[in-house]
């Protein structure tokens, strides 16, 4: 606990919205990284493999880190606006 009270009250909400931003940026970042080899025009296959698969794995890890809290978010909004109730027959 810090001595001063936090300036932003809705910290969790703020974090969550930035997480959504991150989720939106991620595919663009991925596309950018996958286009990088065009700069050096290929090179050796072994380096290519290490680069592509390295970036790929990194993307998966980041996506997992983002998806877990956002998935929980879906649960709560889903119930709020009544969409969650669609599973059962009316």
């Amino acid at each position: 606990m810090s001595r001063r009270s936090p300036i932003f009250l809705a910290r969790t909400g703020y974090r969550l919205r930035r997480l959504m931003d991150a989720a939106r940026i991620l595919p663009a970042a991925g596309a950018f990284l996958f286009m990088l080899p065009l700069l050096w025009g290929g090179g050796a296959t072994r380096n290519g493999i290490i680069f592509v698969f390295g970036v790929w794995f990194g993307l998966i890890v980041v996506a997992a880190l983002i998806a877990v809290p956002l998935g929980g978010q879906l649960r709560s909004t889903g119930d709020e606006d009544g969409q969650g109730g669609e599973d059962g027959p009316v």
Partner: protein
Amino acid sequence: MVPFNLLVLVCLLYVLLLFLIAFAAAKRAETGQLGWLRSPWVYTLSLSIYCTAWTFYGAVGYAARSGLEYVTIYLGPTLVMVGWWWFLRKLVRVGRTQRVTSIADLISSRYGKSNLLGVIVTLMAVIGTTPYIALQLKSVTLSFAVFASNQPEGGTMPDLNATALWVATGLALFTVLFGTRNLDANERHHGVVTAIALEAIVKLAALLAVGVFVVWGLAEGPADMLARIDASPVSGWDLRGGRWVTLIFLSAVAFISLPRMFQVLVVENSDERHLATASWAFPLYLFLISLFVVPIAVTGLAVLPAGTNPDLFVLTLPLSQGAEGLAMLAFLGGFSSATSMVIVAAIALSTMVSNHIVMPVWLSLRGSRASMSGDVRGVVLQARRLSIGAILLLGYLYFRFSGGGEALAAIGLISFAGVAQVLPALVGGLFWRGATRNGAAAGLLLGFAVWAYTMFIPSFGESALMSAELLTEGPFAIGWLRPHALFGIGGLDPLVHAVFWSMTLNTIAFVTGSLLSFPGPMERLQGAQFVNVFDHTGAARGWSGGAAEAEDLLVMSQRILGSKEAQALFQAEARSQGRGGYLPDVTPDFIERLERELTGSVGAATAHAMLGQIVGGSSVSVQDLMAVADETAQMLEYSNRLEAKSRELARTARQLRDANEKLTELSVQKDAFLSQISHELRTPMTSIRAFSEILLQDGAMSAAKQKDYAGIIHDETIRLTRLLDDLLDLSVLEAGQVQLNIQSANLRDILDRALVATQSGERATGLRIFRDVASEDIELQTDTDRLCQVFINLISNAQKYCDAASPELRIRARSSGDHLEVDLSDNGCGIPEKSQDMIFEKFSRLSDEARAGGAGLGLAICREIMLNLGGRVEYLPGQGGAAFRVIVPFAPGPAAAQGPSGAS
């Protein structure tokens, strides 16, 4: 060597296992025990139908020919999945709220439920998918051939075409069995999805096993493997920028617009949260699938003799090293990838064909009314079964007649580019409210035409459908129309060229067409709902007025949803409106809900058209159009609430009015009944008095005559007694003072007794009774005499009032939950809707004539008996005649056993 027969045996056992798994899962889903069937992991694994035999065998071949380029096919979907928050989340939400059944249905529904677009997308999908199915058949037969050609004596070499035919037939059978079991309200196939999840595990395990075998068995670990890659023919990464970017884009687009991917991504999705898990788990699956492709390719190139087909390295490499178990696993992996793709593609395409081509044609052939006789569900399912057969047959024919030795990758990319033409209409539809039906149709048609001209038709080979001169010179020697160099821009890779021009022209046509045309009201409504799917809490309405009769709607829904489901839906709606029975008020909200239910079964356009036939055309009110405009949203919210309130008030007022009318009518009927009863009492009284006076006065009467007169007096007193008995019985029942004699009995015996009682002696009439004796074998605990009395009353009612030329009565029984339902329906003209509320009232009679001596008490007694037994009897509308449903609990509740006190 693996004996070929053993291979076939293993293959059959594996198929049997899949059948069992699918069957068990479908059974579980039917009983509602979804459990793990709805886990995000099953969803993720089902997405793996993206990895077909093209991936399983073709990726290695691709890597052996072009090095690292093969990964583009998996990078595109990875980016789409990772970017789920942008696009897939919206797509799935729209799919769920609009009950979308296929990608054609989505497009058609977005652009004002236009069936034209549905047909275009369906045809494109069929044309684009056929080569892909052929590709799967080809890979399975090739892999069989690998094993067959390794046999010591070559005498048992199977016929490749026959193998393909067998595989296609088997797949059609499986798909028909599990893909068209029922017409589910939301088009989910748990059996198929579970079998596919298992196949996903098998193919991943197989490819990983071969990869591990290559890296740690044949080479000495990753470092050694990298060194071998350096020494291989593909050591240099020949990165062609245009192809690299195009392929990543193309695979990303194909991932969302392939009909089979749409089926598993959107239609089979049961929970939006599963997307969050799949967003990283599915890229991981793709990562693992692609990880060992280059090592396998490099080792295959080094170890196997030159000229071996690189597309089959996954199989031939373990075989050449004597690892036969591994080769068998690899074979099963390839088999799994091919079959799962074909099954889902066939389901998706058959749904599209039946909903967008067969049903509209059938509807228009049936003429104007959708509520005519015949079961639509049967037609839809039959259409789907036939389409599945036809689609697989098309795939087989393509396989037979294309024949050629193209690499697997080439066919796959042609398919990808074909289905990708849906993209502008799809993305525009989800994100741009201005997108219109005309724009979408223009874009789709132009893009598809360019694709066919530059890619699909040339793929049949030179001089097959296009002459060599046309390819090199252009049609009529017009240079800028050459298929591989449109507008004179030559030198491009043919794939890049085709994708670039088809997508560009498609998008231009779509945008221009949308900007220049004007959308209809239904399009604007649907557009607003799709684009703002996260903002709209309630759906905007497309129906107004209540011109439709609830009974007509029920008749139609029964044929699409099934009678039990439709009745449950109508009953629930009626209850939520505060009414009893099966016929709710026909409010626009109700029609909207009904349309969405029907959409889940037959697609948006068909459901809309069928409802339109009954409701008399949809109309969009001014309020609905205002809902489209965001500016007025807030004001509208308020006025909407007022409107809802006033609607509610109007409904309450109507209910009060109904009640009042009922009371007035009851009072009138009560007076009528009193005079009736006086009449009924007086008639026998008069004759009793007259005859007894004659007897008293005329002493010299013959004995025979005396006996005659005394007989008349006796009959009349019996009539009086019966009338008074009924009245007494009713008052006892109503007061709840009746003593029930509960015993266990069989429903069949009770019905037998009732029929014997009604058909004996003078009461026998020409009424023919149809029973389903097997279904009546149900044990229950009840007061059998009372229940029998109810049946006797209902059957004799049918005898008296059924006015058909040859009267018939059908008796159907079925158990449902803790109670039992017995339907008795005749083929007469039924009971008019305005009288349906009244018939159970004790003073009511439909006609004034005193037919068969009844005093209008029979149904009232039935109702009171059933209330005392803890059940009910109700009128069932929409059955083509008068129909009554008797609902009896299997065992009386505590209240019924002691005799209910609160029965009114």
